[in-house]
């Protein structure tokens, strides 16, 4: 009964979405308050019923109800409970259900929390959000029903993929989707503004918390995904420019641009049509990502052609929403009034540069991701655009961005005093050069670009801290005054400082772990010594262990530095007999200075008989943990900014005398 309740709940959610896609927007154009306000209850109803469906699916996974096809195909009675729960969103159908759930959460969020938004704007926004709901709920019900049944059920489920049994991966899709789909509400706000033909500072403020929330979760999701790849895949890398990664990174880049351009719209009433365009494009990229990942296009263009139903449906949705919104944009954007003027040297100009670079970077990633797909579709050739392309095209842009980013916060609105700014940053610029020279002196190896990158990362870090110091009058006023200022600084501004510092920290981690990484792949027998990055590593042998559902070969590595024992590493190779697969469990000695990372593979075939010879891969990745530390700071910065009271401006409710007569139904 439970799965059918889930199925019926989805049908009800779709019906409510249909109502919400028509009534409120009609009310807004006719001035009918009751219809406008119907958006509120139908948005809540939608999230309720999609939630019921999600809970029903989750319950089916938890109790391993194999009469549900989705459960039978994507779970197994022996899976640990946590991964049964995570299995709910592990499959195509389940992940789309999660997608729709998040979509409705954001819709209901605006319905409930957006009490300061004018009724007409809110009604239009929620109707647009409901159009997306209708599209995806019908996609779910008609092509990817998560509640398809099988009877009689198979004896047990068929999936126990051990590689996917990882906490990082279990949490990764929900966070990514929160970011991806969160931008839907920003898109809806933008389309509503286009329909209304009006966008102003107030609009930018209403949208800001939602953009921030989506951006934060996308940041966290991407960081978590890279962390998972680093620790679980056993390749020792944290970013592979893989299409699945790229499609989540593009909305992040453009979302970051949107976050900044919305500030200009809010403070200066400028960049209005650009902000709208960014809002539309950011969500379009999210849709594109969903399409690429969900249509099977990535596995093979031909696989997509063989079973095109799902792909065509998403493609249709994609064409409709992107094409429709851009057409609307082309038609309505020119009539919007222009905003405040600014000089070439000003905060606005700085943010414009930020936006241009971020947009160009997004275009680069888009090209590198789509080009191989298009080429395969047209000519059948399979090529891969790998890290060399992205490193050559994308990295330099980010370096220029870093350069501007350090200086940007010093600029004032409208017109900035360039000489004054230069004077203020002179000291930190010099310091950054000194630090870079010191690094060069100490390491004197690695690519030249690495030193340029270090220079820029250090510059960004120091300049951001300097700007903060200026604001709180550090060393300029008595300590008590400085502390008072630090406490009273608006949280949005504190958040900015924290996020910018976070990016600098993450950059340092990225540079360190890619430019000065050491790697040894050696063939070892007990007693073999390997020297890497100042560590002496001795392989003392391997033993066979039994886990709960796997058999492991565990190597033992004694690590010493300058003769002093440092640690013992135990890399494992696990084989899971039920799933007939193997995983690499790398052993990592993790410190802020860097990770010593070891993994072992099958005994090399020649000496397999003796069982004593192993292929040992050992890596030293300097500063790699700075990446995730930096990401954490980015997210925390976003949270700090989101908690700023200014984002929660309340307005007095306009009430007439009988307005207080409330019926119990409310």
């Amino acid at each position, binding site marked *: 009964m439970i799965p059918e309740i889930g199925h*019926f709940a989805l049908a009800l959610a*779709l019906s409510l979405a249909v109502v919400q896609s028509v009534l409120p927007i009609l009310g807004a154009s006719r001035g009918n308050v009751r219809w406008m306000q119907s958006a509120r209850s139908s948005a809540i109803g939608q999230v309720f019923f999609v939630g019921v469906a999600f809970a029903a699916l989750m319950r089916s996974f938890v109790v391993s109800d194999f*009469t549900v096809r989705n459960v039978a195909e994507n779970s197994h009675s022996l899976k640990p409970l946590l991964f049964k729960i995570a299995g709910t969103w592990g499959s195509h159908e389940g992940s789309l259900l999660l997608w729709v759930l998040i979509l409705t959460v954001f819709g209901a969020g605006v319905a409930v929390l957006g009490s300061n938004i004018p009724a007409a704007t809110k009604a239009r926004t929620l109707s647009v959000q409901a159009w997306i709901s209708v599209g995806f709920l019908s996609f779910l019900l008609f092509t990817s029903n998560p509640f398809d049944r099988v009877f009689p059920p198979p004896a047990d489920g068929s999936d126990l993929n051990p590689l996917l049994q990882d906490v990082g991966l279990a949490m990764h899709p929900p966070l990514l989707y929160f970011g991806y789909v969160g931008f839907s509400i920003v898109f809806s706000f933008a389309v509503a503004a286009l329909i209304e033909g009006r966008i102003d500072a*107030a609009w930018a403020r209403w949208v800001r918390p939602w953009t921030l929330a989506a951006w934060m979760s996308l940041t966290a999701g991407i960081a978590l995904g890279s962390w998972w790849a680093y620790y679980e895949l056993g390749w020792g890398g944290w970013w592979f420019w893989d299409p699945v990664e790229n499609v989540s990174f593009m909305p992040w880049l453009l979302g970051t641009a949107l976050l900044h351009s919305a500030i200009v719209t809010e403070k200066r009433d400028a960049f209005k049509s650009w902000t709208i365009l960014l809002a539309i494009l950011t969500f379009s990229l999210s849709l594109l990502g969903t399409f690429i990942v969900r249509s099977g296009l990535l596995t093979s263009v031909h696989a997509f052609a063989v079973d095109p139903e799902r792909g065509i449906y998403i493609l249709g949705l994609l064409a409709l929403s992107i094409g429709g919104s851009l057409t609307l944009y082309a038609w309505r954007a020119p009539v919007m009034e222009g905003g405040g003027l600014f000089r070439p040297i000003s905060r606005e100009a700085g943010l414009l540069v930020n936006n241009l670079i971020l947009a160009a970077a997004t275009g680069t990633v888009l090209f590198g991701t789509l080009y191989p797909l298009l080429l395969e579709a047209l000519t059948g050739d399979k090529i891969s655009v790998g890290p060399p392309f992205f490193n050559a095209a994308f990295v330099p842009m980010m370096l220029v961005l870093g350069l501007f980013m350090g200086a940007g916060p010093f600029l004032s609105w409208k017109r900035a005093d360039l000489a004054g700014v230069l004077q203020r940053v002179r000291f930190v610029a010099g310091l950054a050069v000194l630090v870079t020279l010191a690094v060069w002196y100490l390491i004197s190896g690695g690519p030249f670009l690495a030193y340029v990158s270090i220079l820029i990362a250090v510059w960004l870090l120091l300049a951001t801290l300097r700007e903060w110091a200026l604001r709180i009058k550090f060393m300029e006023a008595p300590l008590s005054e400085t502390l008072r200022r630090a406490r009273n600084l608006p949280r949005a501004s504190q958040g900015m400082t924290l996020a910018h510092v976070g990016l600098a920290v993450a950059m340092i981690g990225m540079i360190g772990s890619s430019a000065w990484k050491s790697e040894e792949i050696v063939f070892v027998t007990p007693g073999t010594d390997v020297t890497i990055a100042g560590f002496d590593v001795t392989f003392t042998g391997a033993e066979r262990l039994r886990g709960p559902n796997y058999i492991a070969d565990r190597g033992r590595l004694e690590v010493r530095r300058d003769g002093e024992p440092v640690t013992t590493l135990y890399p494992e190779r696990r084989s899971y007999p039920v799933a007939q697969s193997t995983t690499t469990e790398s052993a990592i000695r993790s410190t802020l200075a860097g990770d010593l990372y070891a993994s072992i593979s099958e005994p090399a075939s020649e000496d397999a008989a003796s069982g004593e010879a192993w292929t040992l891969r050992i890596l030293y990745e300097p500063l790699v943990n700075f990446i995730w530390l930096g990401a954490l700071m980015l997210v925390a910065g976003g949270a700090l900014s989101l908690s700023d009271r200014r984002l929660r401006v309340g307005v007095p409710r306009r009430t007439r005398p009988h307005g207080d007569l409330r019926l119990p139904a409310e």
Partner: protein
Amino acid sequence: MIWVAFLVMALVASAFALLPIFRPDTAAVIRSDAVPAVLADQLEEVRRDLDRGLISAAEAKAAELEIKKRILSVVRRTTSEEHGPGAGGGRAGAILAALFVPLMAFGYYTVNGAPDVPALAFGERAPERAEEARIVDLAQQLHDRLQNDPNGGASEGWMLLGQTYMRMQRFEDAVRAFETVADRSDATSATWSMLAEALIGANAGTVVPRAEAAIERALEIDAMNPAATFYAALAESQGGDDAKAYDLLTTRLTEANGYAAWMDSYVARINRLAQATGKPRVAVSDYASEAPRGPSAADVAAARDMSEGDRADFIRSMVDRLASRLEAEPDDLDGWMRLGNAYKVLNERKNAIEAYSRAQELLEAAAQDDPRRQIVEKALRDLQG
């Protein structure tokens, strides 16, 4: 019960759509209130920044001026549209929506739902698993009995065990069971082709050299064994010679007399090869003039539940059906051989000899090395001698 739950859910959904009816219809935030509120807050923010010394007095003044200008323009621009005249109406629309929601959901669900399929948690399925365990147990018992038999266990027993293992997908065990029989003198062509099948299954579909040897042996004993030919073709195909595989299968089909179930899998396989080799596609009707004959699955199922006497009658009627069909189509060599064998089993010697004789007449036209000559000659010798 489930429909009651659906009804409750539908009512809740309707309520969500109906809710606006009960709301006071005027308590809406309108633009001319909301926008100035945001701008006023910005004004306050500028003052705060000035107090804290974050911005200079001149900057603050300029900012304040600009924000005030914007407030004024918003207030001036407020249009009548937002205070719309229809503010009080719209009840009918909400009621319509409240009716539409359950109707659409029920409409969808009656077409696509599966209300009769019960939920079945893994934990509740202990009896089912017990049944499976029982089959495993029975197979184990049979295995033990055969294993401990001082004479090595009956060949039929081992074959049954092997086939049971095949159904349980325990290919390695099936290989061992079939091998036991294959080593014996009473091994038939079928023993070897089943061994080949088990070996192929154990190697994830690859025809390994041992399987190839088994196929060869099966064909030595009976060149007409369709299973052996099928796997011989598979071996060719995996060796890269799809054309030869195609020829092997079509040749065997040409030799077939009348329909048999295996012909369907042949045709499916041939057509897949046809795609790869560009050779023509085939259909069962090209090789068997009539629709499936012989006992249908239903007949077999019926026979299983019959008493001894009933079963004899049933077999009798089947044999009669075959005999009368052969009267109409006297050229069916395999049919006559099957009929001869059936009479032999029923101990009707005279009829058996007659049937085999008809087969022998037809065989005169067949090739000298047709293996069926030996079978028929041996059968006639046994019956007459």
